[in-house]
């Protein structure tokens, strides 16, 4: 993807630190075998993630959006190396961690953490808050005398009273559990945290608390994050950059303001237009309602993957997959007929 770096030159002035990418993903691809047979090659593959490229800027939040099944979680799990990519590069701290072995992964795990959508499933119900927060410290061999102050600090950071330290997860509400999960991910001071739908299961009032919390933590710690979500209004509020996925492929990517301000890909336009607006009067502009459902990722359409639901599709879209091409504002779009 050489054209990306060549395009980057004319970009607006930002601080060096912001500009520097802490994490870069190039041509990331993950295929899952389905319909496995006892012997021989599997008959079918799901192309969950196909040739995805993006960079996460220092102190920044990169959001990955897309419909269910578009491959958001798979991208996240692959970057955290909970899954091994089929191909592509994951550049972190100058190293490609895409294919390194379990032993070298220990160092990576310290720097890249993941928070999952369902805090009930990710917190061991038989461990107290103290034990939950201690575990990563023990695993990564923090000196024992630092455990207690670190736990106090973490609880303070995520806004939980210290008196909760000996309680079990079931004694907490969904929002509080998510705070515990966040504290746990923060414990060993990683450089990057991947949040997989961290607020989707929460009530709006609590969702807002967590969003504000994440923003504050990022400002305080300089953490870079990948924020996976299907909720565009949340993404719009908290992200610096956005990647729009559809059937495992990047449709559009760019700085949040750019992408929401002037979306160029028909799919992004449809997604934004589908969000119900609070004020009827302001939203009278034509609403785009996509027809049909997401096609099966095991059998994606030829050419442009979005073409079966695209109202702009022409003959060429069925035969030739559009390249992801960027402009001077780092705004990338994969469409033969972008806006």
């Amino acid at each position, binding site marked *: 993807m050489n054209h990306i770096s060549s395009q980057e030159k004319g970009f607006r002035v930002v601080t060096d630190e912001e500009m520097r990418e802490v994490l870069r993903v190039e041509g990331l691809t993950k295929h899952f075998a389905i319909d496995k047979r006892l012997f021989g090659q599997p008959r079918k593959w799901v192309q969950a993630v196909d040739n995805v490229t993006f960079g996460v800027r220092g102190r920044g939040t990169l959001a990955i959006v897309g*419909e269910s099944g578009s491959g958001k979680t798979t991208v996240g799990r692959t970057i955290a190396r909970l899954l091994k990519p089929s191909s592509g590069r994951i550049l972190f701290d100058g190293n490609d961690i895409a294919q390194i072995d379990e032993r070298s992964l220990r160092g990576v795990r310290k720097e890249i953490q993941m928070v999952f959508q369902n805090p009930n499933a990710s917190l061991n119900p038989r461990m107290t808050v103290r034990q939950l927060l201690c575990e990563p410290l023990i695993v990564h061999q923090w000196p024992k005398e630092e455990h207690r102050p670190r736990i106090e600090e973490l609880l303070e950071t995520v806004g939980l009273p210290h008196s909760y330290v000996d309680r079990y997860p079931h004694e907490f509400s969904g929002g509080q559990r998510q705070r515990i999960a966040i504290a746990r991910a923060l414990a060993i001071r990683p450089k990057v945290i991947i949040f997989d739908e961290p607020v989707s299961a929460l009530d709006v009032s609590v969702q807002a608390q967590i969003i504000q919390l994440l923003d504050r933590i990022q400002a305080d710690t300089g953490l870079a994050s990948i924020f996976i979500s299907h909720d565009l209004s949340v993404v719009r509020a908290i992200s610096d950059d956005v990647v729009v996925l559809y059937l495992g492929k990047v449709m559009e990517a760019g700085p949040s303001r750019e992408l929401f301000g002037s979306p160029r890909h028909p799919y992004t336009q449809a997604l934004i237009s589908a969000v119900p607006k609070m004020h009827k009067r302001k939203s009278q502009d034509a609403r785009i309602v996509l027809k049909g*459902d997401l096609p099966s990722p095991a059998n994606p359409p030829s050419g442009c993957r979005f073409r079966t639901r695209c109202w702009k599709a022409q003959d060429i879209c069925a035969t030739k997959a559009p390249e992801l091409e960027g402009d001077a504002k780092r705004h990338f779009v994969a469409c033969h007929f972008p806006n």
Partner: protein
Amino acid sequence: MVPTLSIKDLTVSFGKPGRELLAVNGVTYDVQPGETLGVVGESGSGKSVTLLAALGLLPSPPARISRGSVEFQGRDLARMDAKKVRQIRGKDVGFIFQEPLTSLNPVMTIGDQIAEAIVVHDQNIGWQKARARAVELMSLVGMPDPERLAKQYPHEFSGGMRQRIVIAIAIANNPKLLIADEPTTALDVTVQAQILDVIREAQEKTGAATILVSHDLGVIAQMASKIVVMYAGRVMEAGDAEDVLENPLHPYTAALIECAPTMESELKDIHPIPGQSPSLMEMPSGCPFHPRCRYRQDVCASRVPAYRAIGSDRHVACHFVEETAEGGRLVVPAAIDA
């Protein structure tokens, strides 16, 4: 005009008498023919229990209507015998549920599931005719090639398609009332837009009054003409949807609007409500919102505010909302910064 559904002072409890938990406490609202009423509230606020109890769909025990009435076209369902309520359910009242993936019987073809809704209310029609009508209903809710799809099973369909099937079942008998309980919560936005359109069309074709439950203010703003805001089993505010969203009188409504991110708001415009919704076990005294309310006063913790009319078209349950010439406003000594 007789309201299609009129819920008055409905109180629903779970558990044994004496140690019961009130999931719904004195809820009052109604919906007129042809009108769309939006019910919003956070999870656990009693939106579903109110409607399920009203139509006799809650398992009893443990659920019990301990007070109030539910009038459907003037007849009190809460006091009607179960068999009569059953004749109204599915015929005059259609239901759409939140979980499209699990709301359909996995071992019955979708055509039969739609046809069943017709057959159970019309013994004379016969399955043949009912199946033909099911195919018509399927094309009505926008399913391509309904003849063929009618013979398939639910697992062969996506969430959006299954929700269309559920809608077809709900409107099979041209109901007078359509109840949609978070019909799009489990769906992607693009599919949500499709389903909301289908519901809107179904409502236009049948002329049914509609109650649309959602926790998404945007969905309500798009669909409803009236709104009911629930919190902790009570109605906090009700009125014309546009008015309430533009000019909320109740502190909870205002807070709810301020904490929801929209496609216009910036991060700094999102103001969380501190704390969390109370559980049934530890319901606060007085105004249930007082532990989280910016405007609370001493009286709020001790006295439950009455649910009363403010102006011609608004109802509010807050001690400090006053009627004024322009409608109403909140009058409190000072906001507490939480």
